[in-house]
């Protein structure tokens, strides 16, 4: 349970929301990470269509890098099988479901999109079920 008010979580969340608003207001684009990533990888794009996505990705990694003094304990020795299964499921799921935590959870809900609200409820429920099963019956 919460011992102190999670101001860091709230502040970080506000930054994420602000980032999404910036991209929407100026460029008319959704800050959906999975969409940006997979369009770059698997759709033949050129010019600005490709370059803005590259810039966003470079910024994403760069922004994280600049903040790295905010450190948390790194997980070590996590099961590679779980990491691979996770990557595959996240990749397949976000492509089929057209979005992830950012596209549906932050941008879509902000637009009151029923699809995004439904998707967010679905991935929250399946995420909770997965961790509950993983920790109580497997891990």
């Amino acid at each position, binding site marked *: 349970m919460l011992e102190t008010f999670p101001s860091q979580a*709230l502040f*970080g969340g506000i930054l994420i929301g602000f980032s999404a608003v910036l991209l929407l207001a100026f*460029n008319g*684009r959704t800050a959906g990470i999975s969409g940006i990533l997979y369009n770059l990888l698997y759709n033949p794009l050129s010019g600005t269509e490709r370059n803005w996505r590259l810039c966003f990705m470079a910024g994403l990694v760069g*922004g994280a890098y600049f903040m790295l003094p905010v450190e948390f304990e790194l997980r070590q020795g996590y099961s590679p099988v779980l990491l691979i299964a996770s990557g*595959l499921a996240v990749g397949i799921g*976000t492509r089929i*479901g057209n979005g992830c935590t950012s596209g549906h959870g932050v941008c879509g809900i902000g637009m009151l*999109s029923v699809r995004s609200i439904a998707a967010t409820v679905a991935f929250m429920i399946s995420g909770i079920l997965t961790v509950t099963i993983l920790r109580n019956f497997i891990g």
Partner: protein
Amino acid sequence: MQRLIIALTSGLIFGAGLVISEMANPVKVQNFLDPFGHWDPSLAFVMGGAVMVTLGTSRFIMKRKTPIFADQFYISLKTSIDRRLIIGASLFGIGWGLSGYCPGPGIINAVINPIEALVFLPALVIGGWIGQRYSARGNSIQH
């Protein structure tokens, strides 16, 4: 050029937000997804804070005819909740729970925990390829 600077800035803020909020900490994410065990509800404030900002502003932005630097909004206009959306989102949730990574944190992990990124990222890329192929096939059947 303007649009590229906006995209870079937006990415920078997003990446910083993921680290500051600790959304990029997979152990914390798994604790957030564990309400029946070691529940850590603090990450609800990440999505809460982000949605507060988007919910408060999106409708005003969308009242504009065009974005400030572009000639149209590129927004999904789909409104139907279909089986594919729910199956895809549920599968994504399973993956999110298995490691604690959604795509953003998974990608920036390249500079945070490169050892895990080396295993997770190739799987994420291959998974996207599989999903893309499946989606393309489904579309051609639908139409």
